[in-house]
């Protein structure tokens, strides 16, 4: 693979996403044609309710597409078994973890489940991967803590470590900075960027931190109600894709400042 013909890890063809309610299709978005390159940091942008989570759930096979096909390494996603997929794609979800007494180490170790035997025995290689994930996310000092004792920022790092331990080409995170302050948000973005550079993994996040995403990520997927645009961050900024993200009367995208500004006239 060379730069002219980049390695595509994930692409979609005429994908339509949404929900099946009884016999009716409730389409959230359609005509989605994405192609995601290996080793990129990609942010999925869009206003609340536009279908970011639905898209993420569909490309990670948590729910089925209404139409079209998703290819993971050129193989139809529906042809992957759960177990096979678990070694290619890992997730960090927004849902709260159920109450339990899991320690940070145990939580990260659960990421090794696709590789462990029937009683979940940790092999030497599993141990190495767990240690590696814990080290990369800088959570060594939390290893023996229970996960419910952690702050939101720490918990997010632990969940990222769990996904890393799963040792997949792609990691998808649904709003990983939803409950975090500016400082911790930046730290998570920075961590993810470092992981992309150092491990050559493909990381896709959905986020509302647009200003920060524009500074850090390699590529953007912008979801508008009628059109989904994707490409390198600079190209998207130069196009008008971002200006249609929010109602123009309230928020304007300023290409020079590379951020949204509030319309003071209102």
């Amino acid at each position, binding site marked *: 693979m060379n730069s002219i013909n980049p390695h595509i890890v994930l692409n979609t063809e005429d994908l339509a996403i949404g929900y099946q309610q009884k016999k009716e299709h409730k389409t959230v978005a359609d005509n989605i044609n994405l192609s995601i390159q290996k080793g990129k940091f990609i942010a999925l942008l869009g206003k609340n309710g536009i279908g970011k989570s639905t898209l993420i759930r569909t490309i990670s096979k*948590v729910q089925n597409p209404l139409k079209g096909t998703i290819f993971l390494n050129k193989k139809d996603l529906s042809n992957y*078994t*759960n177990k096979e*997929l678990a070694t290619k794609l890992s*997730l960090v979800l927004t849902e709260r973890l*159920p109450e339990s007494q899991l320690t940070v180490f145990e939580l990260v170790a*659960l990421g090794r489940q696709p590789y462990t035997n029937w*009683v979940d025995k940790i092999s030497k290689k599993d141990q190495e991967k767990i240690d590696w994930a814990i080290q990369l996310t800088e959570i060594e000092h939390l290893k023996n803590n229970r996960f419910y004792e952690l702050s939101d920022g720490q918990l997010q790092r632990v969940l990222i470590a769990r996904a890393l331990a799963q040792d997949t080409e792609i990691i998808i995170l649904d709003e990983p900075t939803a409950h975090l302050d500016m400082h911790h948000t930046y730290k998570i973005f920075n961590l993810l960027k470092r992981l992309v550079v150092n491990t050559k993994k493909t990381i896709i996040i959905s986020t509302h931190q647009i200003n920060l995403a524009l500074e850090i990520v390699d590529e953007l997927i912008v979801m508008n109600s009628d059109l989904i645009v994707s490409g390198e961050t600079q190209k998207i900024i130069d196009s008008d894709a971002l200006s249609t993200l929010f109602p123009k009367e309230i928020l304007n995208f300023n290409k020079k400042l590379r951020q949204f500004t509030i319309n003071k006239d209102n």
Partner: protein
Amino acid sequence: MNFKKTYTKQFILLSVLLVLLSILNISSGSVSIPLDEILTIIFGGGSAKDSWETIILNFRVPKAITAILVGSGLSISGLLMQTLFRNPLAGPFVLGISSGASLGVALLILGSSAFGGYFLTVSFSSWGIAIAASAGSFLVLSAVIIAAQKVRNTMSILIIGLMFGSFTGAVISVLSYFSEAQQIQQYVFWSFGSLGNLTWNEITIFFSIYLVGMCGVFTIIKPLNSFLLGENYAKSLGINVKQSRIIILIITSLLTGVITAFSGPIAFIGLAVPHIAKLIFTTSNHKILIPATAITGAIILLICDIIAQVPTSEFTLPINAITSLLGAPVVIWLLIRKKKIYV
């Protein structure tokens, strides 16, 4: 997950406790038999009195074995339900599964008189009761699961479980109304719960079904652990969530069904023991929790049974009352204590 070092101490301690309590359990009863006699009888030696040998080998040892099977089996069922529903208050009783088993048995015992003695021959065989109880518990559990898929909220699922409980209770009342006194008495005695009265033959049947369930439990350690993160994460870790859920439900209904069949509905063990095991072992890893819960359950039911004998007296109280007397305060204490931890 690797923890061997940390938990050996607790396991050794509990195992020693289990053996001591088994002996204490066998030695307690209305006829007092010296301890050295008991030990010689258990280990195959003869005894000075034939009656002692009969009491020990045909009554007390089967009862202690039943206590161990019932205690461990119900506790494991409770643990599985708590993990599956991700709710600390789930258990075979709260979810109406035991009520389902009761309904099955009630239909058999009371129904036989209500419908004119049609099933009379079946109702007195232990197989008949076992099958009726298992079928009943499986039926209610399936209904709870179907409901669970429609409503995601776990609180609603528990309420639905309780509703099934009252519903089956009402059906049993209606059946009782149309039944004869003798059948009602038979059913009421069954519902008091009893660990005794099982012949070696029945214990063999009981143990075989118990063993199938227990072997099944050890095959689902991995899905159980993945459920600690919620179903979506479990799926993303390559677990077949639907299949695992069905296996968990089958094992639970098998264990709860066979236990309720042979010893009547025994409350609270399934709900309280997993919490006690979690407190002692402070882990959520099922590789540790499954054996820990089983041993703790066996120990607690042996204790309950010793109390039910009312030592140095002629009385034997219904075991179902003792487990609730002991279990209810434990659950209350846990809830109060838990508030302190999590808030």
